[in-house]
Every structure is written in C-alpha cells, then in structure tokens.
C-alpha cells in the first residue's frame, strides 16, 4: 500500500461520497397499500387453473397433486363427452399449505395450472383458505404474461393449441 492508501482517510471520503449519492438518489421502496406492485410474467403468485374459451384445460390427471411437496392440491376426476374425456369434478388448493414452488405448473401436461400474479391473499378463517374451482379458474386472457414467460423458459414443447396456429 502506498502512503496515501495507508492514510485511509481519502478512501473514507470517497465512501462518504458514494453514500451521499445514494442518500439523495432515487429510492426502490414501493409504498404498498397505496402503490401496488405489478410484477411481470416471472412472478410466482397464487396458482390458478386456466380457463380456455371452450372450458377448463385441466384433464384431472392428478400429476400436480402428486408432485406438490406440501400436498396442497386435491383433484377428483370425472367423465365428459368431450374429446378429452376427463375433467376435475373437484379441484382444491389449500393456500395455507401452498409454498408457491411452481412444481404443479411445471409438471402439468396440459398447461392447465399456472402461477398467477395474485399476491394479495387474505383469509379470515381456515376454510376460506381452501380454494375451489370457482375461485381457481381464471380466463386465459389474464394469464398471457405468465404463459409467454413459460414458453420462453421451459425446456419441453408445450402442447399445441388451436389458438397458437
């Protein structure tokens, strides 16, 4: 070290300069209740079921339920007359258990369950924290960001869909 460096004071002055710049510079904080956070497609919020124009995508294969680490998902399958003849009679996610890992989304063969941007989850009792199909189904139009993000970042070929063509 040179004498100037050993003196230590010039470096302290430089550091003070940097912190002063920070002091008057722009701030990162979002003033939450007044100002909302609008994340991009990268965000893993509340998992939801995708609702297409012709109904729900889920075929009740149960893979998500199987992979879910805290066992938050419960699926019961039923039959329909459609081409994909299975559908979930009951689909419940217990939000008290969910850890937002996104494994359900990753494993789903139908791209039927995705992580939404919903980050405000308030429940007044335990029962209302178990979300049924009526709360889980979200129109596909609202989930475009996430679906695009998944297609850019996932390694497998997503299932071909009519509207993609």
């Amino acid at each position: 070290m040179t004498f100037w460096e050993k003196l230590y004071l010039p470096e302290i002055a430089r550091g003070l300069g940097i912190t002063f710049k920070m002091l008057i510079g722009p701030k990162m904080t979002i003033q939450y209740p007044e100002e909302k956070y609008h994340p991009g497609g990268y965000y893993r919020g509340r998992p939801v079921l995708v609702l297409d124009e012709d109904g729900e995508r889920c075929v009740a294969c149960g893979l998500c339920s199987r992979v879910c680490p805290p066992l938050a998902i419960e699926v019961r399958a039923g039959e329909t007359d459609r081409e994909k003849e299975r559908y979930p009679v009951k689909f419940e996610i217990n939000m008290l258990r969910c850890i937002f890992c996104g494994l359900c989304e990753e494993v789903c063969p139908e791209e039927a369950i995705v992580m939404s941007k919903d980050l405000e989850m308030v429940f007044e009792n335990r029962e209302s924290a178990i979300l049924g199909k009526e709360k889980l189904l979200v129109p596909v139009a609202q989930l475009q960001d996430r679906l695009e993000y998944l297609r850019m970042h996932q390694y497998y070929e997503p299932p071909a869909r009519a509207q993609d063509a």
Partner: protein
Amino acid sequence: MELLVDFLIGFLKALIVLFLVILPGASGAVYFERRIAAWIQMRIGPNRVGPYGLLQPIADVIKLIFKEDIIPAAADKRFHFLAPLISITITVAVFAVIPFGHYVVINGEPVYLGVAPNVHVGILYVLAMTSMGVYGLTLAGWASNNKYSLLGGLRSSAQMISYELAMGLSIVALLMVTGTPNLMEIVEQQAGWRWNVLYQPLGFLIFLVASFAETNRTPFDLPEAEPELVGGYHTEYTGMKFGMFFLAEYGNVIAASAMMTALFFGGWQVPFLPELLGLQEGSVALALLQVASFTIKVAIFVFFFIWVRWTVPRFRYDQLMRLGWKVLFPLSLANVLITGLVMLIN
C-alpha cells in the same frame, strides 16, 4: 436569598435543557438515524406514524415502556438496575457546561444561555464525565452475568481508555492555543471566523476520531458489535432500561457534536450578521440567532455521525487498538509538540 434565586435559575435552565434540548434532540437523532440509514440504502424509512413519520420516536418509546422488564436470574440485580441510570445521568450531565448562546440581559443582569457554561473547568468537567460514562457500560456488562455482555463491557472500557488519551492530548494542544478551559471563553475567543479548527486542524481530526470511539459509534461500535456479541453490553436489557442506553448513545452523539462545535467551530458565533442587522449584545434577537447558529452546526455534526455510521464498516478489535495507540496517540503528542514550537517561535 440571592443563592436561592441563583439556584432556582440554574434549576429552571437545567429543566429547559433536559426537556427542550436533550429529549427532543435525542429522539430527533433517532428518527434521522433511521431515515438517513434508509435513504442511504435506497429505502424510504419510517414515514407512517404522523406527518413524515415524525412521531415514530414517540411510538418507539411507548412500545419500550410497555415491554416486559426482564432481569436475568443470575444477574446482580442492584448493578443491573444501576448501570443504565449511570449511563443516562452522565450523558445528561455533560450538557450542563455546553454554551448554547452568549447571554440575554434580564433585569439588567446577564443570564448566560446554558446551565452553567461559565464553569472554570468546563473542558475538564466534560472529560471527567465522559470517562465516567464507561462505568455504565462496564457495569451493565458485568452485572448481566452473560459472556457477550461482559465482553462488550470489557471492550468498551479498553476502547474508552485508549481513545481518551488521544482525545485529552488533542484538547491539551487546544488549551495551549486558547489559554482557558472555560467553554464560554473559548467560544468568545472564536469571534469573526477565528475558528479553532483553523489553528488546530490535526487536533480537530484526532478529536473527531476519538469522539467516534468515545460515543461507541460505527466504525468503533465494538462494545455492541451485533454479529459477534449479540447486543454487547445491553444484551440482557429490555424495555425502558434498554431505552435508556439507547437514549444515552444519542445523547452522547449530540454532546460530542456540541463539544466539537464549541471547541473547534466557533460555537454560537454568528459571523457578520449581527453587525449587518445592528443587533445588540445581550438582546433576545441576537441570542436566538446564536442558538440557531449553534443548533445548525451541531445538527451538521450529528448528520456526519450518522452518515459515517452507514458508510464505514466496523473495525476489528486489534485494528481499533492499533489505531488508538500507534497512530492517534503519537499524532496527538506530535500535535502538542508542534503547537508548542509554533507558539515559542511567535
């Protein structure tokens, strides 16, 4: 009768200083500490309680008052109780000799602004008080009967003793220049930009570094180094007793800033404005101006203390000791020598 009046005036001044200077000053310093820390870290900081979060310190105090007061089973109860009291008492006591302004004439008698700013031994009194302050911390560490507290207390005593030397010697050089330890006279001598910092730049630097160590502020906050000592000497303190240590720390910061202002930066002197406005010595307007000047200077120093805290990382213990004994101590001795030589030549 005269004695009684003097006593009452002194008592009144002490009350005013306590409730209008120390308490608001310390809570203001806490608020700005948090705000500035946040700004430096690109956050906003407390802004919810009251306008701009200004009532945050009050909310903090209310919270502290309602906390459970825990005394560890193995602690020495008397000293555990006594330690925060010593800390806060000594902090408050330092303010007794600080001159906040010159004087106002009431009933033909000059009333000096400050509890007792005209004490002959002003500086010695401050040095004595600050070196007593270490008892509070050491006792707290000892009485808590906890290894982290004890280490914190030990560190504080070692640190204070090492830095007191450098601080004392920097003041010796200053006293050679001023020729009096009376704080009021020292400030009076600095009229019209004849600030002592211009005659004693090195002395000021030493005093500044030493006062960081004396007040246990980063980069010398080893007695409460969180990563290694949990909370240091106040690990075992809760509620208002912890609050007292907290208050004492900020009180000390303000006291140190006031000392630096009074000793090196012209204290309450207002340059050229009084002549411009034609204010008379002893008038209330001039006194207010002087108090404002003093307050602004002190506030700048307090800001500097906070600013440094969020910039410079903590020293290691051996580095601290090396700086104290091998750098500051010889430097302050050299400063005394040079000052003496220059005075001899002149």
